[in-house]
């Protein structure tokens, strides 16, 4: 079973076809980089895989579920970290972790382990999210997703706003997730940064996906 299998998928945002017939597949245990210019459709592709958008045309299978028929059961199995942190500004880091953890049925030790992993325990734990820096928010959002131990990671510019430490943690997160048999889709502009930790690269442009073969990729 593919973790993700898209065939000629069209996704409309309003009347705009953000994805215009994209096809790609990702296997479990694989980390894949999505590259491409701004507005190419990378974020839309990740949101589609998270079950947040409906495929207008084509076939979209994620974790064995057909997104045309059932998007609900996919949602709780993916770890999606997008541009929005999906955190409550008025709640502290700890409260956010606890709320989202309990909502997803994650036990306390797992939540704390994820927080440790993202290094947001201690002083930061009791600070309201509104007072966090962009990087600290990103860490918290990643911790919320990590606590759920997702089968499919969908990371949208995960390195943005992070310091060197944070970037290393994200890289380790990607590698470990893939090693543990999970699938990872990372959209990023920092090709040199992500290249070493991914197995494949896919270019998204004009709402279409094209596989980049290792050597060919270097020539371009």
């Amino acid at each position, binding site marked *: 079973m593919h973790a993700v299998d898209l065939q000629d998928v069209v996704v409309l945002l309003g009347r705009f076809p953000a994805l215009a017939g994209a096809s790609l597949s990702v296997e479990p245990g694989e980390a894949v980089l999505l590259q491409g210019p701004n507005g190419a459709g990378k974020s839309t592709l990740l949101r589609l895989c998270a079950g947040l958008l409906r495929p207008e045309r084509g076939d979209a299978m994620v974790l064995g579920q057909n997104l045309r028929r059932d998007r609900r059961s996919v*949602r709780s199995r993916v770890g999606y970290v997008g541009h929005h942190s999906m955190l409550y500004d008025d709640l502290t880091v700890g409260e956010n972790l606890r709320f989202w953890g309990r909502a997803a049925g994650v036990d306390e030790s797992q939540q704390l382990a994820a927080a440790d992993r993202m290094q947001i325990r201690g002083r930061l734990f009791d600070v309201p999210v509104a007072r966090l820096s962009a990087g600290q928010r990103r860490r918290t959002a990643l911790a919320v997703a990590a606590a759920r131990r997702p089968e499919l990671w969908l990371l949208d510019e995960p390195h943005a706003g992070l310091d060197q430490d944070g970037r290393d943690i994200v890289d380790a997160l990607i590698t470990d997730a893939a090693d543990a048999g999970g699938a990872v889709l990372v959209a990023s502009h920092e090709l040199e940064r992500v290249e070493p930790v991914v197995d494949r690269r896919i270019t998204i442009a004009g709402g279409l996906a094209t596989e980049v073969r290792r050597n060919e990729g270097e020539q371009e």
Partner: protein
Amino acid sequence: MTLFEEIALIAGKDLRIEGRSKVALNQIAPFALLVIVLFGFALDADRVALQTFAPGLYWMTVLLASILAVHRSVAVEAGEGAREGLLLSGLRPASVYLGKVVALVAQLLIVAIVLLGGVLIFYSASISDPVLLVTSLLGAVLGVGAAGTLYGALLGSQRARETVLPILLLPVLAPVLIAATRAFGDAMGTTTSDGWQWTQLLYAFAAIYCAFGVLSHGVLMEEN
């Protein structure tokens, strides 16, 4: 998690946010008090008129304040994409809806109680039937909370939310205004209508909207 645990989780989250930001207590309740005082100016501080119309002015003010409270309740989810977080969390839409209703009702109760003190002091209103007053108050606030959460979710993070919500919600709340005013009129001894009958209508309204909210919230959360 059971349905009740989920409801408690959502309601607890919203109330914790209120506890920290104190929007209902420090902004909406003072606004409501201000309206009560302004009504006094508008009616030329006519003691008899104010006392007679205290129930109606009270509930009109609660409805205006509830518009603000519904906006706040929606805004909590609309910021930083928490709405999507709820979709991804796997929580049942019905429990998200009911949890939001519980939290909104609790906040409206704070406003309503502060406001009650306001009409007792500024309008010299007196309570002749406290049991009826409390029962009808709760019923009315439940109805406002149930309908407000439903229509609030319907508008979601729409840019036009602030202008569309009042025109959508206020006509719908007309029965609540009528019934709650009558019930309060009876409880405050300003009219002779049967307040308990009106209270029944308030609870019927709340029940209809809760049922509809539970049934439709899945559809509403899905795409907005």
